């Protein structure tokens, strides 16, 4: 098993917010905390694109670097988790994160007091016994320990949101791109997931198609 990652296929995301709802329900996150959100670019304009965003479980996570209490840790599967017992709710991680993943519940507190940070755990719980009540109350469901993937991805109706082992997820995405003939606008073929030989094959195939059309 390599490294756990999310990938949202912007060509498939229909902004149904099913991932957001699934996450909120599965992890029973408090009012005001959405571990996952759907962002739409050029909303209402033909050709709009939506992308589902949560913690990206960065390889070199800025939240880990700035935390004054060093409450973050990374599991063997590359999932970035944190210990809520050590979190002081300072909000540094919120400012450091480029995806706005860390969230702060304030509940009924006055003057906007921040609670302990809450973020996507890749449905992997936290530093408590797997599947325990304490783990669920603090971090949400530990689906990974049940041999399951995060619910947001598994619930995705169009399978736009993929989760799991990074090479497998990349292969799934690559096969899609090869079949439909184009990548999403946000994720370029050659940027991260394209194998050069596949790009070459596709170019040759296109050239052959054009020749055939020309011959007609």
């Amino acid at each position, binding site marked *: *098993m390599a490294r756990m990652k999310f990938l949202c296929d912007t060509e498939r995301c229909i902004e149904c917010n099913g991932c957001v709802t699934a996450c909120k329900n599965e992890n029973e996150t408090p009012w005001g905390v959405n571990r996952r959100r759907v962002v739409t670019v050029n909303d209402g304009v033909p050709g709009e694109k939506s992308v589902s965003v949560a913690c990206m479980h960065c390889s070199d996570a800025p939240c880990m670097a700035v*935390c004054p209490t*060093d*409450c*973050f*840790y990374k*599991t*063997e*599967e590359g999932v970035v*988790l944190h*210990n809520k*017992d*050590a979190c002081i709710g300072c909000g540094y991680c919120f400012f450091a994160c480029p995806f706005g993943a860390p969230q702060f519940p304030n509940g009924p507190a006055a003057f906007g007091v921040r609670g302990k940070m809450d973020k996507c755990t890749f449905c*992997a*719980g*936290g*530093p*408590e*016994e*797997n*599947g325990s009540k304490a783990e669920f109350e603090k971090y949400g469901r*530990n689906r*990974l*320990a*049940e*041999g*399951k*993937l995060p619910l947001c*991805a*598994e619930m995705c109706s169009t*399978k736009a949101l*993929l*989760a*799991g*082992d990074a090479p*497998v*997820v990349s292969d*799934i995405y690559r*096969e*899609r791109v090869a*079949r439909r003939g184009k990548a999403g606008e946000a994720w370029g073929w050659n940027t991260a997931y394209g194998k050069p030989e596949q790009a070459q094959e596709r170019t040759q195939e296109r050239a052959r198609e054009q020749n055939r059309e020309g011959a007609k």
Partner: protein
Amino acid sequence: MKKALFLALTATVGLAACGEYSQVPNYKQGNYQGKSDTRPWEGDKFAGNKQAWENDLRARNQGQTEYNRIK
């Protein structure tokens, strides 16, 4: 007068930036000090069988591609 002016100028140029100190903080990589976490395959369901856990996850992973269903 000239000598005094020369000394003053030399001292100004020579001693300039002597009080300057590095303003770049020394960054130290912190280490996680909290509770240790159990690994996903160490729960009730898999009882430490990493292979079984990986197989389950692999099956779930492959379930995400609908092309497998039409093969």
